[in-house]
């Protein structure tokens, strides 16, 4: 199993029956492949779908139906479509239970940077700022460190913030970390690592939970 699959599978366990869930492009989208049995969620796509389904096979292709990345997608029975203002009423209005998105940096206050590296990468924030501002629970799904091994979980983010103090949980291939008023709490570690290794790869201080679980 790849690192991304591992993260997606662990994030999926955070979802509850009936949740309205928005999954970001890339790794977060993979969470949909690991929804536990017996749980039904409603996938929201910010371009105007509630009840988004899987990527279509060759025969089910309809280019009137795309996801927020502009890629063809299907809808579940009982789905609905709406315009962008209504879509963001769902998002900003607190009607999305869980948003899962990637990040370049997250800090101990729960602030995140995901939409810009000044001078290098300026794709625009799309719906990310609204999603992290309005969703009841924001989960960051990302690799624990950058490609060069430098920490992404920091004391304070150094890139321009996408939102301030909005993240509730961070799930990486190494750890499940909860953002609390007291700081970052290490709740679980991967079976192939230790709390000490996770702490060494994390710039922000970690509060060790009483019983650190494994995944």
């Amino acid at each position: 199993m790849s690192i991304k699959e591992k993260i997606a599978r662990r994030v999926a366990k955070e979802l509850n029956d009936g949740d309205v869930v928005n999954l970001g492009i890339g790794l977060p989208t993979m969470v949909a492949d690991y929804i536990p049995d017996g749980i039904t969620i409603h996938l929201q796509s910010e371009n105007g779908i509630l009840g988004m389904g899987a990527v279509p096979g060759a025969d089910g292709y309809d280019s009137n139906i795309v996801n927020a990345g502009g890629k063809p997608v299907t809808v579940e029975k009982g789905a609905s479509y709406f315009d962008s203002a209504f879509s963001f009423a769902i998002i900003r209005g607190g009607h999305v239970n869980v948003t899962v998105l990637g990040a370049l940096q997250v800090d101990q206050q729960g602030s995140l940077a995901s939409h810009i590296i000044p001078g290098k990468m300026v794709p625009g924030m799309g719906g990310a700022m609204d999603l992290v501002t309005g969703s009841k629970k924001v989960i960051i799904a990302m690799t624990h460190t950058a490609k060069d091994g430098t920490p992404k979980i920091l004391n304070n983010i150094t890139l321009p913030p996408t939102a301030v103090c909005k993240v509730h949980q961070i799930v990486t291939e190494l750890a499940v970390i909860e953002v609390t008023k007291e700081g970052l709490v290490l709740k679980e570690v991967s079976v192939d690592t230790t709390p000490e290794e996770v702490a060494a790869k994390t710039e922000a201080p970690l509060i060790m939970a009483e019983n650190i679980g494994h995944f």
Partner: protein
Amino acid sequence: MRKVSPQEAVASINDGAVVMIGGFMSNGTPEILIDALIEKNLKNLTIIANDGGTLDTGIGRLIKTGAVSRLIASHIGLNPLTGQFMNEGKMEVQLVPQGTLAEQIRAGGAGLGGILTPTGLGTEIEEGKQVIEVDGTNFVLEKPLKADFALIRASIADEKGNLFYRATTRNFNPMMATAAETVIAAAEEIVAAGDIQAESVATPGIFVDFLVGGEPYVD
């Protein structure tokens, strides 16, 4: 409302116009109106849209011609030329959170003086804007957006200009139809009045000034 050709529809769009264009990553973007605009070789257009399209689709095709000097959008990541033009100073790009952009356009069409949103608090979006406290919670004041023209796309239009949008092609089109001085709609198909169920009309015909048929079918 007048039924016209794409060329007639865009005839009064001139250099420097502010133009809203519907669609989301080119899904729901009126490609035949983009074609007609490209033919005009315009300069200094301001485009208000969700995104910069792609190199080969939607707004991206217009940007490629150099006709756009200013783009107000939420996302430009699928069109590398947008970022390049921005870095080279050929085009000014103002990035706006997607939900804020949708509401600014809605406010422009709905006669509102602006909207108060929590989105962007503590970020670069807040800079230079009024932050207003309502019952102990802070909000950013975002002003309404209006345009000279809106180019929108419907799946089906009727003879009265009523519009129906299939699936996700709706996106920004209904709001834009309310927020521009002149609204040009391109539809795949134009049917008799009454052939679109009244409940399925997402944009009433009173908003549409020019209607163009022949927008390519998608399936």
